[in-house]
């Protein structure tokens, strides 16, 4: 028994199963972060004062640059596969992985700074929503890194058997990764600048 439309597209929908699946998943993620951003707005509008300048803008800006670069390398990893260059693909995927690790290290120093001052999520509504939003985003980064690690490691074997399917999987990973990146592009101004 084979499930159809794993590799080739269904003519009337123009989609493979995986691509539809990942877009649906991203739709639900939009609702998840949408609800959290709405909560942020409601909490901020309803509070008497809102702290400014609690976060290090430079660290945040650096992380923004890192994540955007990782999105670029992710696209390159997929494009290399499309061009049939598997070695280059591995290089770009590894670069994406390292950039995301770099992002998390940066984040760790930010978190550590707050905890050193004894200011955890319990300290204020601002820090509460800051830790919740960036924490959830961090978990999404970690999830993406696990997937990348899989495709650098054991998942790469699929390329020999079915390069087209492997390329598709990298494309889906990329779609997810761009979404995670996009969330950060909203988080950075909302938490650091405004």
């Amino acid at each position, binding site marked *: *028994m084979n499930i159809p439309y794993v590799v*080739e597209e269904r003519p009337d929908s123009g989609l493979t*199963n*995986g691509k539809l699946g990942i877009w649906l998943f991203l739709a*639900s993620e939009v609702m998840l*972060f*949408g609800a959290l951003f709405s909560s942020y707005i409601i*909490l901020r509008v309803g509070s008497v004062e809102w702290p400014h300048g609690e976060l290090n803008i430079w660290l945040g800006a650096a992380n923004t640059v890192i994540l955007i670069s990782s999105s670029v390398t992710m696209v390159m990893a997929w494009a290399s596969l499309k061009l049939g260059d598997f070695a280059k693909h591995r290089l770009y995927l590894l670069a994406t992985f390292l950039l995301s690790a770099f992002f998390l290290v940066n984040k760790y120093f930010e978190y550590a700074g707050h905890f050193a001052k004894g200011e955890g999520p319990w300290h204020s509504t601002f820090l509460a929503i800051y830790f919740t939003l960036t924490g959830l985003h961090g978990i999404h980064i970690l999830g993406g890194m696990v997937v990348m690690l899989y495709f650098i490691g054991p998942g790469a074997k699929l390329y020999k058997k079915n390069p087209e399917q492997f390329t598709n999987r990298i494309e889906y990973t990329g779609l997810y990764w761009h979404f995670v990146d996009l969330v950060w592009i909203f988080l950075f101004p909302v938490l650091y600048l405004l």
Partner: protein
Amino acid sequence: MDNVTHGSVAHGHAQHDHAHGDDHGELGFWRKYVFSVDHKVIGIQYTITGLLFLLFGFTLMMVMRWQLAYPGRPIPLIGAWLGQDRAPMGIMLPEFYNQLGAMHGTIMVFLGVVPLAVGGFGNFVMPLQIGAPDMAFPKINMVSYWVYFLGGVTMITSFFLRGGAAQSGWTSYPPLATLPIANGQTMWLVGMIFLITSSLLGSINFITTIVQLRAKGLTYMRLPFFVWAQFVTSFLLLLAFPPLEAAGVLQLMDRVAGTSFFMPSGLVVSGKALAVAGNGNPLLWQHLFWFLAHPEVYVLILPAMGIVAEIIANNTRKPLWGYKALVYSVIFLGFMSFVVWAHHMFMTGMGTTMSAFFQTTTMIISIPSVIILTALLLSLYGASMRFTTPMLFALAFLPMFGIGGLTGLPLGLAVTDIPLHDTYYVIGHFHYVVAPGTIFALFAGIYYWFPKATGRMMNETLGKIHFWGSFICINIVFMPMFIQGLAGMNRRMYDGGAQYAHNAGLPLKLNIYMGMAAWALGLFQLPFIYNFFASIKWGRKVGINPWDATTLEWSAPSPPGHGNFLTEPIVYRGPYEYSVPGAARDFTPQFESDKPEQGR
């Protein structure tokens, strides 16, 4: 994305034209029955687990009904085993009553009805009805079941924690739910995150399967109504559950990390000011919760409508009346269900503008519901019906859902909601929708598709005893709730509100009869339980199409093997071609060609 492609997969060219070869040998017990990726096995796992949770949730209610009927009297039979911190000397503590109430709601909705309606029927029937070999992502399907199972275990375990299970109602309103008492609430939140993840995975799978794996010739307007209902339901689950997940995370942070998302400043509990940062907003929880929980109501009811539509068409031997109207109504219902949530919050003082908006949308959403019910009712007109057990349950669904829906109208208007809010009237209203409504439809579905799943019929006599007993008892349980509610009886009183003067007399007395009816209702489930298991072994053997039905699942063997269909199914016509003038038989299946030489 994962998929099951055993053996080597040819690069690039179409694989779906290949015959369904058995490309692997017999699977072991664990892979075949426990960690199976076959949608039919997963559907049956969901069905049985869901039924067990329904029984468990109902048992909680039977215990609560004793406390309501005879407040302060020791619970017979099980009272002595409940323990000192739940029911000392067998007499129920108020805290334990609250746990039972919260967990009854949670279990019935999230662990019983939805897994049965969507996970069970959706998984088993939907791929068969669209002519698919399996779901689009079989492994994700398996994960979805096991995550649901973990969520269930988490919820049950919370009863054995110190302080017991969650006690803040199934709605978990803060600040009550975020207070440091009630440890079970943390478990409740963790359990909910499991359940949300499970239904997220399930809904992605359902939508992808319906869009991608329909058989040749099965256009959208030829889909059986049940598939349409599951399609819309999946979108509701996909888009409405994440906000509750967000809310759950925020409440978990409140409980574990000491934040105060939902804790206002200056909260005083038992005479002591609470040491929290404050500045939070308890209403925010209600908005996020009901943003899920109202679409959730339609998650409960739409699959039931789908099941009822299938059974009515089959047993009236007529096409459904207004198929297109049904489809458009169900789509419109799906959209509207996202903009009615705050009609649960008229009492919160959110302002008259908001109330006016949400009562308007609520009145609008009642239109498609009425269209669906009317179309189903008109389908009966002029039919010579077969009163089989599934048909009896499906027929009972119509007036029961009608009562449930119509009693909802006064609750949807802010002015009439104010005196009725949080009374037994509300309980009566939504139980008529879900209990004799949805659960009856689910029973109908079990009797209807049982022969497809097992190859054997369930016993009709036992089925009719089950139906009539349940039908009478369930109405004696729920009908008096409207009287109690109109008298002003509050829904959360652990003694039924005996200390309030307005409850004295009839309203309180009714609790005794309602209790007896509830226990009798429990007894009338015994024929079903026996029938279910005995028929697997001793039921009458049937062929491929025992009901003379028209949809695709009846072209597969009973029970269908791995890969479902013996030959690739092709669809030639709409789903309900019953009693076509000039046809040899009174049903013309979707899978039969007009020209015999083209048929397979």
